[in-house]
């Protein structure tokens, strides 16, 4: 099955567009009140939605994705922010793991799943 947009097509202009600076995974730790303030910060990337992890000391930690500059802003504002891995760089590396071409040849070949087909415990198949 060919890509329905055709070669070049709609993807070509995208390659020339501005790409934002790299994003880092980061963790913000603080009290309930602190994290409530974090949630009011404009344009912070919490992934699909914010998930707070409770810590033993009663504080909580939120995962965010932000540029170095945004992390610095948050730190300057007094938040306890720990910068983690560069997720943009990891993503760029892993783009090499996107399949090339069409391994299923337009549907001539069906995929097989990764689950373990355990013990045939009834006679024969159904279909």
């Amino acid at each position, binding site marked *: *099955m060919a*890509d*329905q*947009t055709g070669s070049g*097509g*709609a*993807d070509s202009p*995208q*390659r020339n*567009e*501005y*790409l*934002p600076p790299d*994003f880092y995974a980061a963790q913000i730790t603080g009290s309930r009140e602190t994290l409530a303030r974090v*949630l*009011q910060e*404009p*344009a*912070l*990337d*919490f*992934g*699909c*939605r914010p*998930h707070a992890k409770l810590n033993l000391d009663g504080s909580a930690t939120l995962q965010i994705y932000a540029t170095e500059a945004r992390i610095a802003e948050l730190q300057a504002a007094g938040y306890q922010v720990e910068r983690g891995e560069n*997720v*943009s760089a990891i*993503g*760029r590396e*892993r*783009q090499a*793991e*996107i*399949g*090339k*071409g*069409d*391994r*299923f*040849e*337009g*549907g*001539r070949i*069906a*995929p*097989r*799943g*990764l*689950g*373990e*087909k*355990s*013990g*045939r*415990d*009834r006679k*024969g*198949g*159904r*279909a």
Partner: protein
Amino acid sequence: MDFLNVVEIESALIGLASKYPTISQLITLPFFTFEGRQTHALLIGTGNGCPQTGVLLVGGTHAREWGSPDICVNFAADLLEAYTDGTGLTYGGTSFTSADIVEIIERLDVIVFPCINPDGSKHSHDVFNMWRKNRNPASSGGDANKIGVDINRNYDFLWDYKTKFATGANPNSLASDNPANDLFHGTAPFSEPESQNAAGYTNSIRRSVGSWTFTRTAVTYCIPGVTM
């Protein structure tokens, strides 16, 4: 094993429908994406002559969450093979007997829609890996940084988030009416072909459907069109 690209996701569904014609049916979704892609879903079940309770599995909503289309395709392939060969199915520490598989295939309609947002996925695969939304530029005003709508915020349920949530209820993490924001919810509920495809199909079959939307941080169980 490499991730499936957007072409392979569709080819995989065609291949499965062809290999298992008595227990699966390829569904062509009616609305083309902005970049002109047409998507498919796979209806799995024997039907037994009447509509069954449906379970809708949706993947690829957020473009950068590369795993979810592959999970959906692999699950569909596993389910079809296990039923056909009369085996059970094991994922890590969780096992399903062959009787479980029969129960699923013969008493449910499992609808697998692995890649609802192929334009966004393609952009994430090839250009900007952190891309999340679709690629609709209608609200961008020509600014590339304002392209796209968050499909998971474009359903009708709670679309009007400013009136549905209490003031101060984390407005920056619910949704956004700013096209530059990754949570931009579009100009109206179901303004996007991707959300129309997901909800339109489930509404058209007029029977009970529960849906799971696979995202990187959550698997959410919802009734039709109400994922957030």
